[in-house]
């Protein structure tokens, strides 16, 4: 298959608009050719995952656009960086290490991107609408936009997301196209009580399982109870995109492209049907915990993906309601916009007695923030539990938000989750 470029695409490629767009179009065209796209389409927004400093290559790439006077052509949000620019005092990184990470975040702003620095742009800025064509990076943001909102993006990685933003174009391929959005593999919840409660851990467990078993196929989940809120679907998607390559899931009767099982599959038969039974969920969740109940912990880490206002309200209510104090710090990652609203409403005082440390613009498992790394850390995030041991070398215990609060009070792993 050969990529057909429009006259405008060709002009961009030839450098007739600007040198930055020519560079972006060159990479985008090669990528589009490689994935077998027949043409490019217009996009209405982008979310860029290039602000996390992975080494010199991160900066070399974006500086090349800055040097060429590049600007994004569509509204573009930024994912987390390696630094908390709002609370620089919490960074445990020397000035030499901070300099390139700070420059990387700033260089993206110079290209016209919004300094959102959140992995959950869908809950604050520029939430796309159903059916909108977008180019997003960050695995949890991608799966949320596709599945929960019904916007359309592929799994765009670092670099290519910026190329899409600078050109305003994306390859006509994959999940941008109707036919590729239909379900392929059925996951049916089976053996659960008929009055199954929408517990947070159920959504994480289902996410872990579909990530492990779906591969690159589009999973359809049947039998999931209606979620309490979008945050449960957020945690399901983030877990699925950690254990697997899931970019889109359908939950029958819950997500917008799956009002019925038949519509989720477009009338086709599932390629495979997989049962999810209670012991599968228990086993998937147990694998996240690397230390036993009762083990001492050094910290609690919440907010992966970034805490929404709803999650903050639940946490603050648990802390206030406990009437106790914490033995270890509770770090909470959140977007700077969400944090500003919390401060505006002056509600963080509800955590008196606890060492509550809001973290903005970044995330505790991608950079050096935690005061202690030798002990275990408790989290309610399947994604944090999956990646933190490899990224920052900590041991992890997983539990729901109430367990995390109980563990912060006890200074050790306490679990009552269903």
């Amino acid at each position, binding site marked *: 298959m050969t990529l057909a470029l429009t006259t405008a695409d060709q002009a961009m490629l030839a450098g007739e608009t600007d040198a930055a767009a020519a560079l972006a179009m*060159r990479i985008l065209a090669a990528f589009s050719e*490689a994935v077998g796209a027949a043409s490019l389409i217009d996009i209405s927004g982008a979310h860029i995952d290039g602000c996390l400093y992975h080494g010199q*290559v991160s900066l070399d790439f974006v500086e090349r656009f800055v040097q060429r006077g590049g600007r994004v052509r569509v509204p573009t949000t930024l994912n987390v960086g390696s630094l908390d620019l709002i609370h620089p005092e919490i960074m445990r990184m020397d000035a030499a290490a901070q300099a390139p990470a700070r420059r990387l975040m700033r260089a993206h702003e110079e290209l016209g991107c919004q300094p959102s620095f959140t992995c959950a742009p869908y809950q604050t800025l520029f939430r796309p609408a159903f059916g909108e064509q977008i180019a997003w990076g*960050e*695995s949890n943001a991608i799966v949320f936009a596709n599945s929960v909102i019904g916007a359309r993006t592929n*799994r765009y990685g670092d*670099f*290519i*997301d910026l190329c899409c933003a600078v050109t305003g174009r994306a390859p006509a391929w994959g999940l941008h196209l109707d036919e590729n959005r239909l379900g392929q593999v059925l996951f049916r919840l089976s053996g659960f009580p008929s009055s199954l409660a929408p517990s947070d851990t159920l959504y994480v467990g289902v996410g872990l399982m579909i990530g492990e078993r779906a591969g690159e196929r589009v999973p359809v989940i049947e039998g999931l109870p209606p979620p309490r809120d979008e945050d449960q679907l957020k945690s399901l998607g983030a877990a699925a995109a950690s254990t697997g390559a899931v970019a889109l899931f359908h939950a029958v009767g819950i997500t917008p492209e799956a009002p019925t099982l038949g519509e989720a599959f477009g009338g086709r038969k599932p390629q495979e049907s997989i049962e999810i039974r209670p012991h599968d969920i228990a086993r998937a969740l147990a694998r996240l915990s690397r230390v036993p109940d009762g083990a001492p912990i050094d910290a609690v880490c919440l907010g992966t993906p970034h805490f929404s206002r709803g999650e903050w309200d639940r946490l603050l209510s648990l802390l206030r309601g406990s009437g106790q104090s914490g033995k270890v710090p509770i770090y909470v990652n959140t977007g700077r916009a969400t944090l500003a609203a919390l401060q505006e409403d002056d509600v963080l005082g509800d955590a008196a007695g606890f060492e509550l440390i809001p973290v903005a613009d970044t995330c505790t498992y991608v950079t050096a923030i935690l005061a202690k790394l030798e002990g275990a850390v408790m989290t309610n995030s399947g994604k944090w539990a999956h990646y933190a041991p490899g990224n920052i070398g900590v041991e992890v215990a997983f539990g729901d938000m109430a367990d995390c609060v109980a563990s912060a009070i006890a200074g050790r792993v306490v679990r009552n989750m269903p």
Partner: protein
Amino acid sequence: MIVPARFYAQGEAEGTALVLARELSFWGGLDATTGRIIDRSHPDLGETLTGKILVMPGGRGSSSSSSVLAEAIRLGTAPLGIVLARADPIITVGALVAASLYGRLCPVIVCPIDGVATGDRLRIAAGEAGEAHVECFGPVPER
């Protein structure tokens, strides 16, 4: 044995195959400074990719994997080439950007990987118009 393949990032490579039992997410899974697998849930934890031809079913996980691969290519810790059973755009773009910024090639090709075993000698050759092939010479004889 010569297997037809499709290339997603150009280049040629010859080396010893390292066949992973499962997909590896480079982000959170590969230390670009050492070339070692650091994902503790991965069956091939501790293996080094540097100087090998990496063979695995596909990509997985975070979209930050493009950066980690490109940085590993810049540092010279990356595999010599990557053979996947299923195309992966995140791996493809990491290799494309390293080629564009530094002129260092790490070919990424897609073909059936059944029958390839760790220790086999592989040669990847890119042809024209997206076509490529992989030659598998079987295990390197012990001396």
